[in-house]
């Protein structure tokens, strides 16, 4: 009798297991319920003539409509004392951004600036940052300094060695753009400033932000060293088929929040599909967890 029971049990287990085995080794589960949050981006340059604030609602990845822009937010920029410097409302909304004329940061008070975004039925969203103080640098230039190769294509590079001032009082980060005016080989006309292809050496202080087109220099690894930002080697590709008649370097000194935002966006793009990379949540200094409130100082230097 016990043997019969054993055989029946084995047969039952086998049948049940075969049925489950046929279902395969992949299971589909529901998306967790999404808690909608407010995403806010406001990036302010000291030379901007307008403030552009972007406010939207997050959405579940399974939502076919995606994130929706918010038109009825009240966006306020305040100083440390709580004084309102700028306000943007629905009247300033152009269908995509909240825009108001901006008179620059010369008259801004010292200290942090605070962003508040009030959207009906949502918690107040806040963020803080401050305008960086800018930079000074010296550089040495060497034309056609070396050659490099990528995937079998060899090219010549001009070398620029920068010595940036490392302000020990604050975290320094600079986004570098090389720009040039190109003479049209047929008409002889000289065009407007356009980006030149540039790259940095392998250096923990240098990160290529190709999503934005610039090269980021950061003192994160050399915070306590006053000469920590000396010897920054950058290279501009010497494209022999165009005639660059003027060159300049545009330097954006970034607030720390903006630096972290750019780097995390770049890493996010770099790591798409990589199984070796850590999950990237995209940095945010906004209280809701999405977006960025950052500032940068815009400076141009002739080369």
């Amino acid at each position: 009798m016990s043997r019969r029971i054993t055989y029946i049990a084995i047969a039952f287990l086998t049948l049940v297991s075969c049925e489950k085995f046929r279902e395969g080794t992949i299971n589909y589960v529901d998306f967790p319920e999404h808690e909608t949050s407010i995403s806010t981006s406001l990036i302010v340059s000291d030379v901007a003539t307008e403030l552009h604030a972007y406010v939207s609602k997050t959405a579940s990845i399974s939502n076919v409509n995606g994130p929706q822009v918010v038109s009825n937010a009240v966006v306020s920029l305040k100083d440390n004392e709580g004084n309102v410097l700028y306000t943007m409302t629905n009247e300033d909304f152009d269908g995509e951004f909240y825009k108001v004329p901006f008179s620059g940061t010369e008259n801004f008070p010292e200290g942090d600036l605070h962003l508040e975004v009030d959207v009906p039925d949502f918690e107040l969203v806040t963020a803080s940052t401050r305008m960086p103080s800018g930079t000074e640098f010296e550089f040495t230039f060497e034309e056609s300094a070396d050659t490099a190769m990528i995937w079998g294509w060899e090219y010549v590079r001009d070398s620029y060695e920068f010595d940036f001032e490392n302000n020990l009082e604050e975290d320094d980060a600079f986004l570098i753009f090389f720009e040039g005016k190109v003479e049209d080989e047929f008409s002889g006309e000289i065009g407007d400033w356009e980006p030149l292809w540039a790259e940095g050496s392998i250096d923990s202080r240098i990160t290529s932000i190709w999503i934005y087109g610039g090269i980021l220099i950061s003192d994160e690894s050399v915070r306590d060293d006053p000469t920590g930002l000396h010897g920054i080697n950058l290279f501009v590709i010497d494209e022999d088929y165009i005639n660059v008649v003027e060159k300049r370097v545009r330097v954006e000194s970034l607030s720390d929040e903006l630096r972290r935002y750019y780097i995390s966006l770049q890493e996010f793009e770099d790591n798409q599909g990589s199984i070796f990379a850590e999950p990237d949540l995209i940095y945010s200094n906004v209280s809701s967890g999405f977006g960025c409130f950052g500032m940068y100082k815009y400076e141009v230097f002739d080369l």
Partner: protein
Amino acid sequence: MRYIITLVIALVSLSATAQKNYTISGHIQDSNGFEQLIGAVIYSEDSKEGVVSNMYGFYSLTLKEGTHTILVSYIGYNTQRYEINLTENVRLNFDLVAGLTLEEAVVTGEEFNKIEDQVQMSKVEIPIDQIKQLPAIGGEVDILKVLQLMPGVQSGNEGSSGLYVRGGSPDQNLMLLDGVPLYNVSHLFGFFSVFNADAIRNVTLTKGGFPARFGGRLSSILEVHMKDGHMRDFHVDGTVSVIASKLTCNGPIVRDKASFMFSFRRTYLDLLINPLIALGSTGDVNTTPSYFFYDFNGKLNWKLSDKDRLYFSAFHSKDDFGLEINDNFGQDVVDTDLGFDWGNEIQALRWNHEWGPRLFSNTSLTHSRYTYNSGFDVRTFDDQDTTVISAIFNTHINDYSAKIDFDFAPNARNMIKFGASYIYHTFNPGATAIELDFGQPNPLDTITGASSLNSHEAFLYVEDEMEVSERLKMNFGVHGSCLNVQDTSYFSLQPRIALNYKLPGNVALKLSYAEMAQFVNLLTNEGLGIPTDLWVPSTGQVGPQTSKQIAAGVAKTFGDIEVSLEGYYKSMKGLLSYKEGASFMFDLDDDWESKVTQGIGNSYGGEVLIQKKKGHTTGWLGYTLSWSNRQFDEINSGNWFPFTYDRRHDLSLAINQKINNEWSMSFVQVYGTGRALTLSESTFSSTLPDGTGMGFEVYEYSVPAEKNSFRMSPYNRTDISLIRTRESVDGYTKYLIFSIYNVANNLNPFYAEVDYDLNGTPVIREYGLFPMIPSIAWRFKF
């Protein structure tokens, strides 16, 4: 008259205080082969005092002069009783005779060392014979997988043999094989551990209340001891299973004086899979996968004299996974070779010496090395030249150490341990050899990555386990450690204390507090869980990890059943993690320290364990309710988030049932909350300047809402096994082991990701790894 009485009383008092103490000491060992028995009890029925043998089988018991009835007992062995008249220090070795394995035997001596008598709390001991009876994948018994069934011990991914103890990560477990640390204990991508159960004598896991002699890791101490080898007869034990085969031999070199043990295990998955792959290869494309693992345990044991023993242990393990693809396109031939391998090796020389009846020492010289390599090599051959694209990544850690430990038993109420250790570490956190040759004049052939890092680590400790009163026992001590690396020194003084207070009704109330420090760290990729672990040291920029743990509990034995309830709280600092977006593989930046960030964590919870170790029915029921969280300033925007292996509920039931002399069966049921995962489940829009510095563009991103905000499906698994044993009169024993892993064929998730179906709709796919796996194994021994 009054004066005479006073004088007599004074004389009696004097004689009482003048009563001498003498010590009996020696070794407690198996009578058949002289395997040292760890934790055997030796107890005086008259004075109600006793001690347990240390990890080398040595004991020292100091008693008052006079006649004593001594009981010596150990689980699985017949208790022995001796009458001795103690008039001087006596050296006595006890040879216990093995009874029927796990036979019921209620013995007075064992009354001494019940769970409620032990000061040490948060400790897990499972007899090795019980481990061997439990069901296993492919019939391959695994010690770490069995430990994962204990409360407070979580498993990682499905199939993983990693231990996550009380909310700690795998690097926070000190894995000791004959006293030597092992850094990577996994075979087959973590599905099995490197511990070969046939070569192992004893396994103990300590989760909290750490005595001062232990240090260097925050969360647990796993002590695994190899067998010493039979001193009289030659024995062979072999197993053939679906996954691997192993052979263990041990026997005398010089009878009663020296013995050897070696055990070798190898898988043959490569031999099974290769023919199938070859069938699928087309004429122009030949694909040759290869995977194998092996491990070797060896030990020599020499009894130099009654007071001296010498041991030499060796261990070597390797896993090698590779894929060779040969594409022949006529004029062009492309050879692709990719893969990874990792391995451990240790050697240990140990000298035991009895300095006197109360003082014992163990001196060790050891070497441990762990190596990991991965990479690819692609070579294209045509009529004109050869193109090479090659990148090989290597990381390794090398330790040389010297250690001395003393056991000093001044009397039956005190056991003092003290010692010191020095370790010279060499770390290579990761270097990549790159070769790029496209036929250009100067091909690239270079090595980039972190350079080797040396460090010096040392520790001293002293502890005393004391019987303060009839109801109160305690173990207190201090562990002091230091590290010198890159002209930076770290010092840590770690107090340890554990108390056992016996309440009426023989219920023990236990309390412990321990501070720990750790100077090595493991960086683990949170992706698919492939073996990308990097061991890195504390440096001038990366400080050590520290923890403080407090635990409280009650324990009592009901007949043969031990019941313990414990609660704990652990706070941790200096935890190391990769920053968001960081990748260690093929990164040309040699500064690994810039890719990591340090933070804090906490874990707390309660554990229940009901365990029966003897009799025809043995096993345990364990349940854990726990929380484990982390906070890093540079991860998750600095907000607290659940640890990846934060499992709210964890329930395990393991039962071994001996049906008769021929048949026994085992059953395991496991249930656990799904582990946390970071999944892209939200979309948001944000802006970036458009490159001119004047305008902006809007971009949409799919990102996780928060780190580890997604929970995979709960883990639920049932295993069964049936063992048939046949013994012949000439001592040859055969076992036929039938087992079914995951009887209900539940799809326990190994990994989950967001993907898109054919309609472009996003879906979350959970991938399971192991369906129902029946297996059969055959074992023999003589």
